[in-house]
């Protein structure tokens, strides 16, 4: 009974042709009109048919927040759990069922405020979860308080004179927590969104994806300075593995490291292409990814998007399985009677 097969009613994962509709639940979507969450949901539902994973083998787990309503709209298995705890709940799903495709959907408050501890621990353990954090730099569901990603000075319901909290840089937090996959994308570019989610899905292990998302009701335009069509080429720095890091309409700008290994933006004309940093997602050392994460403090400066880091480490549940198998090999499948009799026993006639 110990093996997972017993728990995987459907071992068969042969290729299937599914469509977007196969991943849409019958529940009415309840986000505000114009909310960025819609485009993320659409991208996900467009993308999933490309994987050959059947809806019944996927589980979406969320905490609480606007973003966290996501699982209700997916025609997969799903848990809308409690605020901040989704990574823990999802870890339980993955631990019990390594055969499943488990996604975590979270907001900036859910993942980084109340849920910060579970997030960093699931990343260091490298549980095979795809963790999407919809970062709108605000608490949406509770009607507009600042969040751990809000900029200093932000005036909100709970900070009428401006917030005093220095924000987290989510990418830096993830890298500092030993994440094996870290990426960033945004809600205005479905293609990039789909590519990034696709990469996250391909990664075996914990994948952390920050998705810049517009909350048009409580924090409208938070990312407009970099994600609006007209600004993208100058403000978004697309990362491509093996390529020198360049951006701008004609790639006229680029990224270099200085003698302290700090990333900074340069004009390619001044330094020449060869001086540019060549992006390498696979560096075992997270330092260069960390440097890139520091390029922009707020979404008003040129900001790297795409995959910052993608390295292989054993997954947590994979290792757990290994220990289970080894144990059976070593001592045979558990024998309850023998277990109870282990140690000193005596008989009374």
């Amino acid at each position, binding site marked *: 009974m110990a093996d997972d097969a017993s728990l*995987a009613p459907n071992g068969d994962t042969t290729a299937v042709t599914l469509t977007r509709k196969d991943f849409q639940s019958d*529940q009415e979507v309840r986000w505000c009109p114009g909310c960025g969450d819609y485009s993320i949901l659409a991208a996900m539902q467009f993308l999933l048919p490309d994987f050959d994973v059947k809806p019944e*083998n996927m589980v979406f787990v969320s905490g609480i927040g606007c973003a966290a309503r996501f699982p209700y709209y997916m025609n997969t298995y799903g848990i809308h759990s409690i605020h901040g*705890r989704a990574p823990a*709940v999802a870890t339980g799903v993955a631990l*019990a069922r390594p055969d499943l495709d488990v996604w975590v959907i979270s907001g900036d408050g859910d993942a980084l405020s109340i849920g910060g501890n579970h997030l960093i621990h699931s990343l260091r353990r490298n549980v095979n979860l795809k963790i999407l954090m919809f970062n709108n730099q605000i608490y949406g569901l509770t009607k507009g308080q600042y969040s751990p990603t809000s900029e200093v000075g932000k005036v909100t319901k709970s900070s009428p004179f401006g917030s005093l909290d220095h924000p987290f840089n989510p990418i830096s937090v993830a890298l500092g927590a030993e994440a094996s996959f870290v990426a960033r994308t945004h809600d205005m570019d479905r293609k990039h969104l789909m590519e990034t989610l696709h990469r996250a899905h391909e990664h075996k292990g914990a994948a952390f994806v920050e998705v810049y998302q517009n909350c048009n009701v409580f924090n409208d335009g938070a990312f407009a300075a970099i994600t609006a069509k007209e600004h993208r080429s100058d403000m978004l720095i697309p990362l491509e593995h093996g390529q020198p890091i360049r951006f701008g309409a004609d790639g006229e700008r680029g990224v270099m490291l200085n003698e302290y290994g700090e990333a900074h933006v340069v004009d390619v004309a001044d330094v020449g292409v060869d001086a540019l940093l060549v992006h390498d997602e696979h560096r075992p050392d997270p330092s260069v990814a960390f440097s890139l994460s520091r390029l922009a403090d707020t979404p008003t400066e040129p900001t790297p998007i795409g995959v910052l880091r993608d390295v292989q480490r054993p997954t947590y549940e994979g290792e757990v399985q290994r220990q289970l198998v080894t144990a059976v090999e070593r001592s045979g499948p*558990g024998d309850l009677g023998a*277990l109870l009799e282990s140690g000193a026993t005596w008989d009374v006639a």
Partner: protein
Amino acid sequence: MSTETTDTRQPETLDRVVIRFAGDSGDGMQLTGDRFTDVSAAFGNDLATLPNFPAEIRAPAGTIAGVSSFQIHISDHDIVTPGDVPNVLVAMNPAALRANISDLPVGGTLLVNEDAFDERNLTKVGYESNPLDDGSLSAYRIIQVPMTSITLEACKELGVKPREAERSKNLFALGLVSWMYTRPTKQTIDWIEQKFAAKPMVRDANVAAFKAGYHFGETAELFDHPFEIPPADLEPGRYRNITGNLATAYGLIAASQTSKLPMVYASYPITPASDILHELSKHKNFGIRTLQAEDEIAAVGVAIGAAFAGALGVTATSGPGLDLKSEGIGLAISLELPLIIIDVQRGGPSTGLPTKTEQSDLMLAMYGRHGEAPLPIVSASSSSGCFDAAYEAVRIAVKYRTPVILLTDGYLANGSEPWRLPDVDGLADLTVHFADAPNHGDEFWPYLRDPETLARPWAIPGTPGLQHRVGGLEKQDGTGNVNYDPENHDFMVRIRAEKVARIANDIPPVLVDSDDGARVLVLGWGSTWGAITAGVRRVRARGKPVAHAHLTHLNPFPANLGEVVAGYDRVLVPEMNLGQLSKLVRAAYLVDAESLTKVHGLPFRAAELEAKILEMIDG
């Protein structure tokens, strides 16, 4: 056994004895007690033990705070407690003497390591003069033995450093007491040899010290003869000695086997619950996945996720951790998923007395969640009883798709007693049937209930066509869709309560051990069982009629409890808290349940119960 010795003196036979080993936390008293326990168990005595140690890993040597003790009660008949007071007190140093002497009754035997009674140690605990000399102990039978020096002597040949050798003095004491009570020696020696196989020096020193102690008994003229406690004639069967935490772990493993649900055990270490995690993590060949979570909130979350995925989700903790799991447990109630939460209760509030026992989390288990969030509560009454209690908790959880709280406590967890092994094939079958097809036309409704149990279907990921979403928002009965309708909410709140209430039809009525003419009922729960039973026996020994009922199920109560309590003039509820069960009983049945409360971090004494019961019978 006595054949093992060349001794001619005939042992005197006793029906029971209570021995307390006391010394510094560094002196290995717990190990000494454990060894004596195993040998006595294997020898066939009935027994009960009470370990008692400080919260600090190593409290300062020679201080009262640093005293660690282990009490064992062995007998030739069925017993239920570790004994109120010791007949024999082994004191390895002045601190141990000072901390324990008040428990030794006049005429009791006091075995001391006189080497430890030097100026420094005496003043450390405030003895102006040496009690071994100043006659202050004249009320006792004192046996002074220079345990340290003899141990050093015994190890001289082995080339062990004196500082090392000195550490074996607890085995000297064990050897001596083993002789006094004619315990077999082989088992202990074997144990030492394999335990310390890796450290030959230590091994040899320990064996030497143990033998030295045993032979000292034989040769020294201090004792006119040894004693013998014949085996108890317990129910026929195969026995082993077991602690409560081990029994809990075994109960979970058994239930995982018979339910065919692989166990996911997620827990954050906390005294006195950690040993369950330690034990379960050894048995991976049973398919048990153990996870040491980052905190208790994560632990319950992991267990919930595992349950959704079709595993047996279990988490264990003690009071502070149960506080933290409150919100997660409430989620599980709303999700209506099976989940086992074990609370090994300890002294509270707050960090309180981490290594001491208490029964003060009953109300927390009952009400410690916002909103109307009822769940079943099961408790264990003895160390070995933890096996059945854990098994019953799983039975209810999987059958009713509900979180269940299992309450044990530090005394049950660390104490031990002989356990008659159950017939493995005789265990109730807990097989679960997962939903595998639509249950409402061609739709699957995750909250379409079983009309009898009101349990909802358990459809696990991987099952084609049964995809569904569950969450903590209120949901429509049947479809499970998020729903804010006032009537539906009212209905759901009541049906969740009804589901739990109906379990009363599925549990045995509470048994009453009642004498004819009994007017006083003693109603207990959990680990007070031993003390209450012993107290009741004493009352009966005086020819007074009394009744005893003990609860395993605390929510819902057994269906007959109302009648039972109404059937007596007076109801006494002894608890190691300020009266938690009595409040529940009073509210439920409007009977004037009287409380006997003790919050000492230690179990009741049979004598305390005897006195109170007599007072109620006569008063």
